[in-house]
């Protein structure tokens, strides 16, 4: 770990605020958290090395560049995104936050559990999420976010139609 300081409270607050935006379905604000070259990824499930897999060689569940992050949010806010209309209720719980510096960026890893309620059924998505954060004009931004699910298959969840 680098000796240069970081503000743990600010980093934690950022991750909690991100979770809050997702639970509130404020996706326009959520996507604005990403830098211009930001990426959002969900690694394939059932593999042991999800944190280091390369999405240009292995099939991911999500491997969005900045444009597709925006398109994903536009689509999800439409009534015609049927899998999320009416929208699921979700609750993102973020814990065990570890933080380290990598030159100008801050790398975080955190455990997550997301409860999703759809047609009165509760399902869970759990795993580890890695963020690369950067301070841009005094505010933290997401350079990359990769969710690695602790699942062997999407049974019974079926889809990942929400944002993790």
């Amino acid at each position: 770990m680098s000796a240069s300081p970081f503000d743990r409270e600010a980093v934690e607050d950022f991750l909690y605020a991100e979770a809050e935006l997702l639970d509130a379905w404020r996706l326009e604000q959520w996507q604005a958290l990403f830098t211009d070259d930001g990426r959002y990824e969900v690694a394939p499930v059932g593999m042991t090395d999800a944190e280091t897999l390369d999405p240009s060689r292995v099939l991911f569940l999500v491997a969005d560049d900045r444009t597709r992050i925006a398109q994903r949010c536009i689509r999800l806010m439409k009534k015609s995104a049927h899998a999320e209309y009416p929208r699921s209720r979700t609750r993102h719980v973020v814990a065990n936050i570890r933080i380290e510096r990598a030159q100008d960026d801050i790398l975080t890893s955190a455990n997550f559990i997301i409860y999703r309620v759809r047609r009165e059924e509760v399902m869970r998505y759990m795993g580890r999420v890695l963020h690369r954060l950067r301070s841009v004009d005094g505010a933290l931004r997401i350079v990359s976010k990769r969710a690695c699910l602790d699942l062997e298959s999407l049974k019974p969840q079926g889809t990942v139609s929400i944002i993790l």
Partner: protein
Amino acid sequence: MATLLDPQADRTETHTPHVAVDRDRLRFRVDRRAYSDRDIFLRERDTIFRRCWLYLGHGSELPAPGSFVARSVGGHDLIFTRDRGGEVHALFNACSHRGSTICREPAGKARVFTCPYHGWVFGLDGRLKDTTAKAGYRADFNDDRLYDLVAAPRLESFRDFWFVNFNPAAIPLVDYLAGAGDYLAMIADQSAAGLEVIEGSQAFSCYGNWKLLVENSYDAYHGPSLHSSYFEFLDNRVSGTNMAATQTGFGKGLGNGHGAFEIALVTGRPVAQWIPAFGEDAKPKIAAVHAELVARLGAARAERVAERQRNMIIFPNLVVNDNLAISVRSVWPTAPDRMDVRVWALGPADEDAMLRRIRLDNYLTFVGPAGFATPDDIEAFELCQRGNDHGAPGRWSDISKGMTRDEDLLHAEGDFMDEAQMRSWWTQWDRVMAGADTLGGVAG
């Protein structure tokens, strides 16, 4: 119910009461209990999934001697192996001693399989090698091979797509595939080096009868409505034009219940249709792939392989979609109202790294549990199942679109937006369920 079976009226030519054909009014209808009834679910297990050829896996999943994949097919746990000599096997994953599951890893490489219970050891060809006990068995205990692992009664391949059949008397795979063989060949022909399964296969389950996914997989009719949000995304990406309205093509039954639609739609394909969104760097690479196809397959076949998109069902439950990328899926009933789905992406074994990246990008945008379209398909299955199970007043689902008076149902043809391919599927379902077609005789 029995009145639907009146052969004199020439209105029904079916064998079960669950499919009704009315050629006068051009109506083809399916009893919705076929999607929810427990007896039908059990009968499917004993007929459809006992007598049809079922997809096991692709040869590329066993890259070397010693490779294995554990996979459930038709309710049976199998191990798909390549033995030391390179020969491929499909073995039941149960010890010949007391029935314990032997192979507990989903895939890998092994010299032998060792049962965790009493330590019996088997080769990847299924041969019993060791019982670990020195005493208590006659020297000729396994001379008749009674205690080797049991192999699936039939295992055959077509262009490295491997299928099993639990009926020893089944017709050969190549005959079973009928017209679907050429469609599978068109996909295999995409590369002289063969295809490979790309790492990162997907498995999910959802609420809904398995036949809802089958129908959905080659139902172009639902595209513009259910997937409007996907087409809006595509319009922005490809051309700014209305993509859904530019499609043209046909749908048809391919014999034995198989069927497909084939369309011309410019979405861009790594093999081999360039669009500006792929970037200028990719243009010469895709042109080279196209030129190789023309040289190897001739201009007409190459045009079809490269520029057309196909969604196919190999009866009963194998989806082979060759559109933005190649996607192979198998769907399995686990209850009348629940299905398990497995999805693989395939690509040329020798694909250029940039084209592979484009392929995966293309793929996950549409397909897959977090794509821009598949979650909405799953939503449609769940809504249909809900409607079936909870009192939709109409008892019949309609599959009449594009029906003609004299069509041969197993080889029905129509516009790609019609439902000819689905009528072929349901006609075969009806025949196999009733035993009117046993696909090679009944053995067990």
